[in-house]
């Protein structure tokens, strides 16, 4: 099996017409004309981030429930996810290539690995921040450990958990910009396609920021839905 990683097709634009484009300026007209070509990369980028955060949350949540019961597991889980988090995304993509091949799978695996530490750490932080009084009160009402976890501890930990998801999502948007090295497309490919053309950089880079803001807003909305109990208490 060979690696065979042709990068994004670099198409040098014809800039010979004496237009704004040939002067390599910031060209609103060009952007309006070429807007369509950014839609697919942006959608793909969003998909990569969404999948990474989704899988990352599923795995980290499972690990956190485990570690919540067996505290001894916290340190090793943090260490392993910490190493995964440390490996540069670009290196991670390339090291995975011979194993999982070019495409979205490789990118999602690497991106998911990066979210684990952030999400796991914040779930643990949220659970640790639950006041002992709340836990005692719930136990005093006759709840089992399982009920205390699902009805008291986890709901109270929602703000920290969502904070972790927000950080994970915004970070993933940035890291996914290198996913085109793994053949997974995304806005990074659009950036790389014409690295010196100002209008291209501004549009593709701007879309990345916009995407990060959208994900952030989405999670803020989810948090508001899940923490209605907060508004019941007068501030």
């Amino acid at each position, binding site marked *: 099996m060979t690696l065979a990683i042709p990068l994004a097709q670099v198409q040098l634009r014809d800039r010979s017409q004496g237009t704004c484009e040939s002067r390599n300026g910031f060209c609103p007209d060009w952007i309006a004309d070429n807007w369509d070509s950014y839609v697919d990369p942006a959608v793909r980028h969003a998909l990569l981030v969404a999948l990474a955060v989704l899988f990352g949350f599923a795995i980290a949540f499972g690990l956190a429930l485990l570690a919540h019961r067996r505290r001894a597991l916290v340190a090793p889980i943090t260490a392993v996810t910490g190493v995964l988090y440390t*490996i*540069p995304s670009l*290196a991670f993509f390339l090291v995975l290539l011979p194993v999982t091949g070019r495409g979205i799978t490789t990118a999602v695996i690497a991106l998911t690995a990066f979210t684990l530490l952030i999400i796991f750490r914040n779930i643990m932080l949220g659970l640790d921040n639950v006041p002992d009084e709340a836990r005692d009160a719930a136990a005093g009402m006759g709840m089992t450990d399982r009920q205390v976890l699902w009805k008291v501890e986890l709901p109270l930990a929602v703000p920290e958990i969502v904070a972790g998801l927000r950080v994970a999502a915004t970070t993933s948007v940035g890291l996914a910009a290198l996913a085109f090295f793994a053949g997974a497309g995304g806005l990074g490919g659009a950036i790389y396609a014409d690295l010196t053309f100002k209008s291209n950089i501004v549009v593709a880079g701007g879309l990345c920021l916009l995407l990060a*803001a959208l994900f952030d807003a989405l999670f803020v909305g989810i948090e508001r839905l899940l923490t209605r109990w907060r508004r019941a208490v007068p501030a």
Partner: protein
Amino acid sequence: MNDFADAIEFIFRSRESQTGGVEIGGSQLLDLLGKHLELSAVSMLLAVLVAVPLGLVIGHTGRGAFLAQFIANAGRAVPSLALIAFFVAYVGVGFTNVTLALVLLAIPPILGNTYVGVRQVSPDVVDAARGMGLTELQVLRRVELPLAVPTMFGGIRNSAINVVATATIAPLAGVVTLGDPIINASVYGDAGRLGAAIVVAVLAVLAELLFAMLQRRVTPRGIRSPDRRAPQVRPSSSRKVSVTP
């Protein structure tokens, strides 16, 4: 796993490039490593010189807190590739420009963590220091700074890893680092690309270990015990995750 064997061989033994005529791999990687480290070190130094004083002042006075938090949050969302590309398109290629881009990338976590570190120092402690007659500068230097150091260093550590990782795409802007085999695969071949990726990964993990050790060193002994938990963030955590981003 032939790919990996070939990549490992690339790391330890030099060979002729795909295009011919140039020796690549082996000791040639040391040159790339040198440039990689130089670029990372200069960028980190500049970022610390800018972000730490700024974070200390903002944390101490409470003025500009919004700014510190905005920068810390917005910085997380900026893709490193977009930042480098922006510099290439608008400022041009070269060592200085890449350094500036990396500095911009490194500042937000350091600034945010320094600010949080100072803020989380208990007001009682600060009041006590003032009551003992310390001037504001002394309060900052002798009380707030030592207590903020672990959190602050967490930010520096975070940035350092990020900078080492991002220096990998510096060849796009004309600085030949360890990312060169990754980006110019037509010269280095697939083995070079994978080999360089492995070297970069190892380098990042080593940097992380080094900074974790340093972080333990700079933590004042009084707050070094492992269970102690700061009100907002854990001083021991490398990747500080703020409770409210």
